[in-house]
């Protein structure tokens, strides 16, 4: 028993050292500087006010654009039953699961001066100049964000809509409301919490967007996240970076709290219907043309950037790929670029082991049910027992919330915290190769907990008792009952950890050692260098990363158990 208790402390200890300690260091650094640099400066200097303003404005615009683009899709998938619906929906998820660096590369491959769109237009209209020049503007950032978060709106709003009883709208129509009014007064209010929740989540992602803005925004545009990175890496102005991180932390925590509250309200008792009853076939020609036209546009928008990367990477056959294996003396990599693949795989492996082990222990430590009345206990005993279980339950809920905290912390902030906290005694890990997998574990850990916990909670305690009564020792009970039931959830958690680690850019950009780049870091370095060969190698590495991520997504979809699981 004592061993089990010590084990339960492992995830907490990990968070204490690698999450709370760096956060404390950020807090300290931002207030420690006595020479008017730091915390106060960001409130008095116009420049930082503009950065904050730009961060908010671009996030708000991106969110609005994403909602406008994806709400019709939510409606079509929720209300109509058509061939290929599930495949199409699965395809919309791919952009979201792509590493940011791949998305950024894809948009430059598509809309850059030598991107496929411009080349095609120039050829078509005999132009000398590329007609679309949106690189380094707000427009391309908005496009990339919409591309990225489209599926969030589709999933959250569409999922909710699909289970909404259409009878309610029919009642409104019978009571004399026309279609538009029935939608406005009945359906929309019912959907509102789902729409707001989706919008808030998209806003959080856009607010903390790093890779897309860093690469597509050019030198003149910066969000808080990008500014923290530049202050740290280019200007080495740590107090300012710390103060910005603090601002970023306050914003993301506030947004996350609002989001969590809203999500709880989403669970209000509505009479939800199984989807088969709600969906119907597309009927009239007009309906068919509108729906299929929309779906075709959606598919083009979501797939073209990815296809463009692959196509461009093969522009000169396997030339760019071959170049990855060469270690040029003047190379910015110091090592053959293909080594980045090896590094990434190693870090991903370490992340899987760390995140799954800690996530599994954490899930077990909060695997308690909400208090329910027990069957065969006197009513008085029942009441006092409920209170005892109740206080234990609130401790569990607190722990649950603590485990989710890293989710509400931006990657660059995490990486920055590592830099200022873990490079000096008592904990000097600056040269340790473990810094990267530890950072990745911090990002992946909440996902792992969330994929295992619901399955673990679904195991009836009676099952374990039944196994015991049938002669299974406690260890055997775990092996025969728990393990087979949670294996799939563990695999899903592991694939999550793998995908996160392979694509992680924000934290890695700050903590990776120069001679041990990951794939995203290598891509970023290539994108920062002039010349077609460098861009070509970025495309080749992006293609490799894309294919690895896609393979992981497919693997995950294959083991997913029904609709359980919270992601």
């Amino acid at each position, binding site marked *: 028993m004592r061993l089990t208790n010590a084990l339960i402390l492992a995830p907490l200890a990990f968070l204490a050292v690698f999450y709370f300690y760096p956060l404390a260091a950020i807090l300290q650094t931002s207030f420690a500087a006595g020479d008017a640099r730091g915390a106060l400066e960001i409130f008095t200097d116009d420049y930082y006010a503009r950065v904050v303003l730009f961060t908010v404005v671009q996030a708000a615009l991106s969110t609005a654009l994403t909602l406008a683009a994806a709400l019709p899709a939510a409606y079509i998938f929720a209300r109509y039953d058509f061939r290929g619906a599930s495949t199409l929906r699965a395809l919309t998820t791919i952009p979201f699961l792509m590493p940011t660096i791949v998305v950024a590369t894809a948009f430059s491959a598509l809309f850059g001066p030598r991107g496929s769109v411009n080349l095609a237009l120039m050829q078509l209209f005999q132009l000398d100049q590329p007609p679309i020049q949106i690189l380094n503007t707000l427009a391309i950032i908005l496009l990339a964000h919409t591309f990225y978060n489209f599926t969030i709106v589709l999933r959250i709003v569409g999922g909710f809509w699909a289970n909404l009883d259409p009878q309610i709208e029919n009642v409104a129509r019978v009571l004399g409301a026309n279609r538009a009014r029935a939608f406005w007064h009945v359906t929309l209010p019912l959907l509102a919490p789902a729409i707001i929740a989706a919008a808030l989540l998209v806003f959080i992602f856009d607010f903390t967007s790093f890779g897309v803005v860093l690469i597509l925004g050019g030198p003149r545009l910066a969000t808080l996240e990008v500014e923290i990175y530049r202050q740290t890496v280019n200007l080495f102005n740590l107090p300012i970076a710390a103060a910005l991180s603090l601002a970023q932390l306050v914003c993301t925590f506030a947004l996350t709290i609002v989001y969590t509250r809203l999500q709880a309200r989403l669970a209000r008792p509505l009479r939800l219907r199984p989807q088969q009853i709600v969906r119907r076939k597309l009927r009239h020609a007009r309906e068919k043309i509108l729906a299929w036209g929309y779906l075709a546009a959606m598919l083009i928008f979501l797939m073209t950037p990815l296809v463009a990367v692959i196509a461009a990477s093969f522009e000169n056959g396997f030339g760019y790929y071959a170049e990855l294996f060469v270690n040029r003396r003047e190379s910015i990599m110091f090592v053959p670029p293909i080594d980045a693949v090896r590094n990434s795989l190693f870090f991903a492996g370490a992340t899987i082991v760390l995140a799954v082990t800690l996530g599994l222990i954490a899930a077990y430590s909060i695997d308690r049910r909400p208090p329910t009345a027990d*069957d*065969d*206990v*006197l009513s008085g005993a*029942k009441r*006092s027992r409920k209170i*005892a279980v109740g206080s234990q339950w609130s401790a569990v809920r607190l722990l649950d919330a603590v485990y989710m905290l890293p989710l509400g912390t931006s990657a660059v902030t995490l990486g920055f915290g590592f830099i200022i906290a873990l490079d000096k005694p008592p904990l000097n890990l600056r040269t340790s190769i473990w810094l990267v997998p530890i950072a990745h574990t911090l990002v992946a850990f909440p996902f792992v907990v969330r994929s295992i916990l619901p399955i673990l909670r679904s195991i009836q305690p009676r099952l374990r008792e039944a196994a*015991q009564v*049938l*002669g299974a020792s406690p260890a055997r009970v775990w092996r025969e009952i728990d393990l087979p039931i949670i294996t799939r959830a563990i695999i899903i958690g592991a694939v999550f950890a793998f995908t996160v680690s392979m694509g992680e850019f924000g934290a890695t950009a700050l903590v990776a050692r120069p001679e041990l780049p990951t794939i995203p870091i290598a891509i970023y370095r290539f994108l920062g260098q002039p010349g077609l060969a460098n861009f070509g190698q970025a495309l080749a590495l992006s293609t490799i990363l894309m294919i690895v991520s896609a393979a992981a997504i497919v693997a995950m979809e294959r083991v997913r158990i029904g609709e359980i699981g919270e992601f």
Partner: protein
Amino acid sequence: MIALQVRDIVKSFDGAPLLREASLEIARSEIVCLLGPSGSGKTTLLRIIAGLEQPERGEIFFDGHALRGVPVHQRGIGMMFQDLALFPHQNVFENVAFGLRMHATRAPRDEIRARVAETLELVGLAGFAGRDVNNLSGGEQQRVALARALAPRPKLLMFDEPLGALDRILREQLVAELRAILKRIGMTALYVTHDQDEAFAIADRVAIIHAGRVAQIGTPEEIYRAPANAFVARFLGLTNLFPAHLRYDARAETQLGTFDATTPRPINNLMAMALIRPDRVRVGARGIAARVEECTFRGGKYRAVVVTENGARLTIEIERALTVGARVGLEIESVEIISA
């Protein structure tokens, strides 16, 4: 020969006593049923015998050996749970084979296969081995749970309201079948229910549990013929109970008058209860004046509620219907005196 002996078990939850010195004995190959209202602690007693809960005081012996300190998985006691707790990730065969695999680590595969087949046949599920337990009907799932509990041949098999979720017709059929199966293999069994019909149908002896103790144990007939006290009588549906004062001439004074009374079991208190069985009251013109308050047809007989002039309320069973509101005379043929 005594197989299980439960002696003075005490258990409370957060200070509220649930079991107060509960004792019970079961002979080999006997089926005993624990009968009591919900909240009376019967499930807890079962869980204590299985080792899933620890008693505060008291001992449990099996074949003379104390079970204290023996962990659940080494007690060799089988249990069928109220919610069945079939392993959802295993098919019928794997569920039934589970206990066999746990007990005999080196049991040859053929032997396990044979035992599972044999047990499935016993419960009427021959040919179900490969089926998914999640796609079985309620009755079939009950049988799988029974087969899983039976397969390792436990020394004692316990049932925690295993038929609670089924409808009445299916339940009656399964109770009869269950008793036949248990008797065929000579299983020692302890069965928990709150349903009197179910208890009487399955048990050799019934133990009625009240206020944390076994209030009475005996064959269904013994208990019905001579309930030990007013609680047992009420629980069996005998509700015509009136406080009685037992006089030295062995006559009993009650609200309804003074009667010659029989005492089915010795009474050590002069303040007792008079029990009047519904079929021991005759309705005519003479006797105690009463008014008919209710009369319903109960298949073959009528059941009426009558109220006497001094407010005593009696449920009676009669051959002919009575008009509600009519005035009648009651002649009480016999009165039994039991403990309050």
